[in-house]
């Protein structure tokens, strides 16, 4: 294949491989996006005692199962990275497949949970608590969807033994999505 690699993918003044540098930069911006959103949620939650009533209706067990699913998918993602490090493309692809499965499971549980809330009348316009609930969890779910799609492409390449370094890159992103949920879970489901 007469494909010439762009210089930007091989050159790095920082000593960090360019792809990894790029994903860290993305995450640095994500920290401000999610951090800002959760910070504003926390401030309102403390300043508005009436939110306690709305917060008491979130379904802790569904949130807990999803936490377990995401933690497990992070585990399979890091095992995929480990396999890629050893040059085992097929093994890495299989583990990425499990991670994608985790993403799908997370989204199915999330859909079931939202369906229940919406049918009960707790919609995004019900009050400010529910606005935050759907905005924060929705933005996070979009990240899950984006991650799962990208992971699909990387898994196909990895299966053919190509671009194995990308397994680590998608892994770093995926763990970040996990970390965001680690904070969303207590904020929306545990501290009532």
């Amino acid at each position, binding site marked *: 294949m007469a494909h010439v690699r762009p210089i930007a*993918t091989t050159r790095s003044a*920082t*000593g*960090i491989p*360019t*792809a990894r*540098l790029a994903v*860290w930069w993305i*995450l*640095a*911006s994500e*920290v*401000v996006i999610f*951090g*800002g959103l959760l*910070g*504003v949620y*926390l*401030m309102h939650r*403390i*300043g*508005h*005692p*009436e*939110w306690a*009533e*709305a917060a008491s209706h979130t379904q*802790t067990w569904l949130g*807990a199962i999803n936490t*377990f699913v995401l*933690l*497990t998918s*992070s*585990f399979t993602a*890091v*095992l995929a990275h*480990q396999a890629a*490090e050893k*040059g085992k493309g097929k093994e890495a692809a299989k583990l990425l497949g499990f991670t994608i499965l985790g993403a799908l499971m997370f989204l199915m549980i999330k859909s079931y949970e939202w369906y229940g809330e919406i049918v*009960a*009348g*707790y919609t995004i316009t019900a*009050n*400010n608590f529910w606005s935050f609930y759907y905005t924060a969890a929705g933005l996070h779910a979009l990240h899950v969807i984006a991650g799962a799609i990208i992971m699909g492409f990387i898994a196909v390449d990895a299966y053919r033994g190509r671009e*194995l*370094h990308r397994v*680590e890159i998608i*892994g*770093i992103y995926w*763990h*970040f999505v*996990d*970390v965001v949920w*680690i*904070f969303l*879970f*207590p904020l929306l489901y*545990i*501290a*009532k």
Partner: protein
Amino acid sequence: MSENNDSHDDGHHINYRGIYFALLILFLISVAGPEVGERLGLPWITLVTAFGIALVKARLVINNFMHLAWEKRIMKWVLATSVILMFLMVAGVAPDVMNHEGNNWENLAAKEAVQRGLAEAAGYSDGEGEAEGEAELVVAAAGFSAATSYGQICATCHGAGGAGDGIAGAALDPAPANFTDPAFWNDPIRTDNLRERVLTVIRDGGPAIGVSALMAPWGALYTDDQLEEMVDFVMSFRPDE
């Protein structure tokens, strides 16, 4: 793979399985936290098990799964800058968001939102499945009980026992009135025509008789008869002299 063979990947072996099990155990503790806190009567346990454990879990994932611990220092600084900027933003707006009034301003919309929200919450508890549609502002006469209404609305700041020690009142300045303190009832501002004054404050808020503006007007919640019952209930906290 050539891009991968930098020092970052050499020389450290992480027990991923061990980290994963540690994460699961921490997760179980965070789920059990509120239950334990409730049984022991120590609600702060939930804060530790929820947010303290979230920090530990995040650190485990960031260091061991994302390998930030082995990353070049510049990347840690870039991420730290983001975190600092985020905290600056939050700290900058926190005084305006978390307080609903200051020396020269008052956030009426926020105060009304609190009042409306608490009233809706009180309405919901009368029956399940009322989430749809507007909540009744006047608590249904049939199921009305001054004690219940006090518990749902007033106790948030004034405390279940009327001692001014409710959760939401802890941060208020001036502090919420302590109905069990004789000094409250002997304050010249309300000794003259006491009953009428208490009723006015509940209905029209603190400023109506020149006391704290943090005491919101609750008149919209009650019919006249219910207001009288609320006054009776609040006055029942008055210590015998």
